[in-house]
Structure formats: C-alpha cells, structure tokens
C-alpha cells in the first residue's frame, strides 16, 4: 500500500505501560478493557489499535482530552516512546527497524518537534536555540546563523537573537520553539500541545502564524491539542482520540456535521458552528432550473460571513462559487438548520462526558 500522499502511517499500534506489557497485550487483544487491565494486572493501556494515516503537506490534528493518549501517540512517531506492538512507517520506511544511528538521522533531518513547555536550552541564546538542529550536526554558529536568523525573522523575532530564553515572554519563547523546528529543514513537524500553555490572545496569534507558515511551506504537521476550536482552526485532517483509541477521523467539517458517537456529539455541541462550518459543507448541488438568487458567495466562506451578508434574512439564497464558476446553491433556511447540532433537539440529556 504505497501511497505517495501519505507521509506517516501508523498501523495497529498498541502501547501498554507496566512491568510485562507483552503479556498484558494478549489480554487486550482478547478484549480486556482499560479499567479491568489496570485493576487485575496493574498495567495501563496507553494506546489501543491505532490506525492513522497522515497526509503529506497537510496539518493533521490529533485531539483528545488529557489522558486520552495523544501525547503518547505523537512520541511514537519519532520513537521517544517505543510501542508495545504495531508499525510506524515514515515515508515508506518502518522506523521501528531503525538502529540508533538511523533514528538520530530521522530526528535530526526528517522530523522536528515543538513542545508544550517550549523546552528551550536556558544557557543558550535565542539564536543558538533556533540553530539547535544544525549545531547537533556539528555546524558552527557562523554557518547556521543565517538560516536561523531567517526563521527567527519569519516568526516575528527580529532583533531578539542575542537574548536568552528567560528574557522572553511565553509566546515569544514558543516562537523560538517554532523557529527551532523550522531551522532543521525537516518535512515533518510534530507539535505537542504547542499553544496550550499560552494565553488566549497569544494563542490565536500563534495559530494564525502557523496557518500562514503552513500555506507557505506545506509541511506535514502533526498537531496535538485538547482544544476543539484550535483543532478545527488548524486541521486538514482531524483524529479524535478517547481512552487510547481513535473514535473518529476525517475531514473536520464532516466530523462536525456527522459525529460518530455521543462522545463526539458532546464535544462539538459547544462549538461556534457559524464560525467553523464552511459554505461547501452545507450547500446543495446546482438545481436543474436556475432560480433568481440574492448574490454570490465563495465556497470557502464561513457561515458567519454569509449571515452577516444576508443581514439575518432567512428568505434569501445564494450562488456558491468556486474559482469563478458556480458549484452549488445555499438556502439560508438550510444554513440555519446546520447551525443546530443534530442531536441537541432530540436528546438534551445525552451527557456521557468522560471528563
């Protein structure tokens, strides 16, 4: 199954923490649950039968609450954590067969990582931190400084190169973290709750910065978060994790409109749907007969902007345009219906929230 569009594929990945994970694995494969395993065998089920394909050049967001195993999962991609069973393929290579040297090469050149707590080296300047990857390969500061400065400038840290990390604010420190990942020139960026430690306004700034960088660079990004708004803002491909298993994955708009189970329904019910949903997800295809329409909107417009355009008039309907051609129509009544989560009206007490 060699697919050029898939950069990383994770197959049947299991991770069990404890003294004898191999034995515990058998119980899990025989159908034992997480709580039973902990009580009877004192083993913690971290990840259970994970199958995820990460598309090349896109942002894949893995979302779950704390304890869902998302941080454990991302650490399998560069083998900071060894799996109990399963396969991890990066660009067609099974990285679990790598020896120490191959693994170091993978980490130095093909993957970089951004951390929740920034994890900068406190005794090195911002420039030296940004140039960590080349310095590990033995390049001198003079050699890598041009590249490192370029990325520091790009993330908005002009003139801060000679500061020490403790002299910067949290948001600026994380910009250094991103510059450090970019300076390594790797195709894959792993971001472990990269913006979770920042305050909300800075977080929005950083998300915009990441989207901007991504539009420009098209890296393969694996982004971990517990925040659904953040996930929907960044994701091309969304994976929802709960208790160590993948419960739904796919296009974010699709998940939002077709939640697979009550857990996800609960999750998505608090979302500002007007801001997240796009016209293309709720439009209907072009009808046979051309009726009179109130105007034209782009297929990537958010519903919020369409509501603003219509000034709240539900009698209107619009032509949906893609690259200047009509691709569908949007009726305002359908739009308003899409704003209400499908299950909300039927079952208001569906609170099965795991917490």
């Amino acid at each position, binding site marked *: 199954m060699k697919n050029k569009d898939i950069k990383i594929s994770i197959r049947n990945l299991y991770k069990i923490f404890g003294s004898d994970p191999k034995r515990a694995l058998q119980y899990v494969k025989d159908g034992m649950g997480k709580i039973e395993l902990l009580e009877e065998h004192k083993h913690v089920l971290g990840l259970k039968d994970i199958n995820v394909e990460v598309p090349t050049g896109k942002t894949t967001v893995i979302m779950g609450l704390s304890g869902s195993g998302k941080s454990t999962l991302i650490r399998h991609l560069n083998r900071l954590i060894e799996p109990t069973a399963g396969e991890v393929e990066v660009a067609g290579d099974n990285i679990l067969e790598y020896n120490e040297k191959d693994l170091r090469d993978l980490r130095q050149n093909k993957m970089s990582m951004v*951390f929740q707590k920034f994890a900068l080296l406190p*005794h090195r300047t911002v420039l030296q931190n940004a140039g960590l990857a080349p310095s590990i390969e033995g390049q001198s500061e003079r050699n890598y400084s041009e590249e490192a400065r370029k990325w520091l400038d790009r993330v908005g840290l002009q003139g801060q190169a000679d500061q020490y990390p403790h002299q910067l604010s949290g948001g600026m420190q994380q910009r250094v973290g991103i510059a450090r990942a970019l300076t390594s020139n790797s195709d894959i960026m792993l971001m472990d709750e990269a913006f979770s430690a920042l305050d909300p306004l800075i977080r929005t700034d950083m998300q915009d910065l990441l989207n901007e960088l991504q539009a420009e660079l098209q890296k393969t990004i694996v982004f971990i978060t517990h925040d659904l708004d953040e996930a929907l803002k960044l994701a091309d491909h969304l994976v929802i994790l709960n208790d160590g298993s993948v419960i739904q994955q796919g296009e974010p708009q699709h998940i939002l409109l077709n939640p697979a189970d009550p857990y996800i329904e609960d999750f998505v019910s608090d979302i500002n749907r007007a801001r997240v949903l796009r016209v293309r997800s709720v439009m209907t295809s072009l009808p046979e007969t051309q009726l009179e329409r109130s105007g034209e909107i782009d297929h990537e417009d958010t519903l919020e902007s369409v509501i603003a355009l219509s000034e709240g008039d539900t009698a209107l309907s619009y032509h949906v345009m893609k690259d200047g051609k009509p691709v569908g129509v949007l009726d305002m009544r359908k739009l308003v219906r899409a704003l209400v989560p499908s299950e909300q009206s039927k079952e208001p007490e569906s609170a099965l929230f795991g917490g």
Partner: protein
Amino acid sequence: MATYDFIFNRLGLRNWCGESGDTGDGMTSMAQLLAETSGDDVEMSAWETPFPSMDALHEACPSFPQSRELTSGLESGFLAIKDTLKVVVDPLTQPLSWALNEALWVMQTVPWFIMIPLLMLVSWVVSRQMKLVALVAICFGFLGFVDYYIYTMQTLAIIFVCALSCVVFGVPIGIAMSRSDRVQRTMIPILDMLQTLPPFVYLIPLIFLFSVTEPKLYGIAIILYAIVPVVRLTDLGIRLVDKDVIEAADAFGMSKRQKLFNVQIPLALPNIMAGVNQTIMMSLAMVVIASLVSAPGLGVLVLRGIRSLELGVGLLSGLGIVLLAIILDRVTKAALARINVSQSN
C-alpha cells in the same frame, strides 16, 4: 564458676573449651584480676548477670576469644595485607605526593609581592567584584603582617591540590551515579560512610600504609573527607535537569555524549559549583586535623597551640583559617552567582 558455663555444657562444647571456668592462658581480664586480689570467688546475684559479651563467654570457656583478640586480629589482618595493598596503592597515589610537593614548593618560592597580586587577579577573574579583591588583599596582608604568610601559603597549596583532585574524581563519579541507579545505590552508602566516619579514623590505617613523611598520607585523608559533596551535588544536579529539555534534546537527535556535555553538565553547573564550594570548605577543615600527620600550614600552629598551651598562637592561627575560609567561600560563591545569572529561569 562463670555465668555462662551452661551454654557450653548444653552445646556439648566442653571438651573444645578445655578446663571449665579456669583461665589457663596468658590473657587476664581486669575483672579476673580484681577477683584474685579480693581473694575469694564472689557469689553473684541475678541482678549482676553480665551481658553475654566475648569476655564473659571467655570466662566460661577459655577457648572462646576475648574482645581484645578481635581488635588485635583486625590489626594483624590489616598488617598482613598491608604489603600487598601497598604495592598497588603506592604507585597509584604517588602523583598526589608529587603534586603536593610541587604546589608547596611553588607557593613558598614565589615571592609575596608576586603571589598576593596574583591571588587578587584570580579572584577578580572569577568574581568580577572589586570588593572581593580588596578582601583578598586585606586578609593576605594581615596574615603576612603577623608573620603567618608561609603557613597560609602552605595551607592554600594543599587545599588547591586536594580540592582540584576532588573535582577531577568527584564529578565523573557523580555523572556515573546520575546515569545508573545501580551505581547510585552502591555509592550512597560509601558516601554516607566517608561523610560520617570521624576524620581521625581515616588517618589510622593511612599511617600504617604510608610513611608519615609522605605528603600523600594527608592528601588522601583530605580528599576522602572532602570529595563527598561534589559527588553528591553532581549526581543531584544532573538528575534535576528539566525532563522537558532532555526530551527536546532527544527529539532533535542528540547523542548521549552531546546531551551530557551540551545540556546536562551546563544545566547542572550551579549545583556542581555549590558542591565545589562545600568541598573546598571541608578540605579546609580537614587540613587542620591532617597536621597531626605532618601536613604543613596553619594547622601546625593550631596544634602547637594545643600541645604546648600557647593560647595566642592557637587563637591567631585559628583566625587565619577563618579568614582563608571566608576568602575561598566568597570567591567560589561569587563564581556560582555569575553562573546562576546567566541561566536563571
């Protein structure tokens, strides 16, 4: 009749013991002597039952060893392995003798008008504080003025060599401890023992092993006593390095070696320096005791104060040691503070 006769009778060891209750061999305990002089075998009440010690059991059974045979056995055992031990330890520790001799020679040969400015320069380079340089000048000036200059320099030479050896051996031991829990588990009891053993006790076996005229005798004693803090704090410092930073170093593909030298040691440096400071202070304490085994320096004067009750000499040399301690402490702490500033979080 002795109290514990019954033990040997029950166990059927009477034949092994020989004559019951009678001491036929040469060693006589004080209690027996007293009993002999008082003339008669006193009947003992139950209240006076002696602890079943080696001596009490010996009374009941002459073949059972007395406690003094244990200590003399230890001694003869040590003397028996002494020559073999010496063959191994002597050449290994010889460089320490040379280093101490050289350091003593240099410190005493360089004239004061070069040495004192040199020491001031060193304290400036390390601390960058004019105040400390002035303190160094005043203290050495005072010690020179009261004619203790040579003694001070001898003490300083010994501390310099011993503290340096402590760092050279202690830091790698600390690193090894931080990397392996097993090494840590075996080292901690040894360090505890080195730290709590009364300093005089180090000296006794060392006197047997080396000649008193050799400087390494006191060198080893000082190093054993003073190496503990630098080992402990190196281990602690490396273990305390932020796990997230270590993970980042791993994630960007650092090798173990790069991690040690580029991340762990630099981040543990404040703790290591605190250990070096403690090590210097402890070697200063030990250098006084080491004067009992011919270590030169201010300790000799303290000893003279005690031996011949020269109160003034003892007090003044004690003050000299305090001044030296203050200088060494302040200068190393200033160096520590400079490291802290550059990486405070």
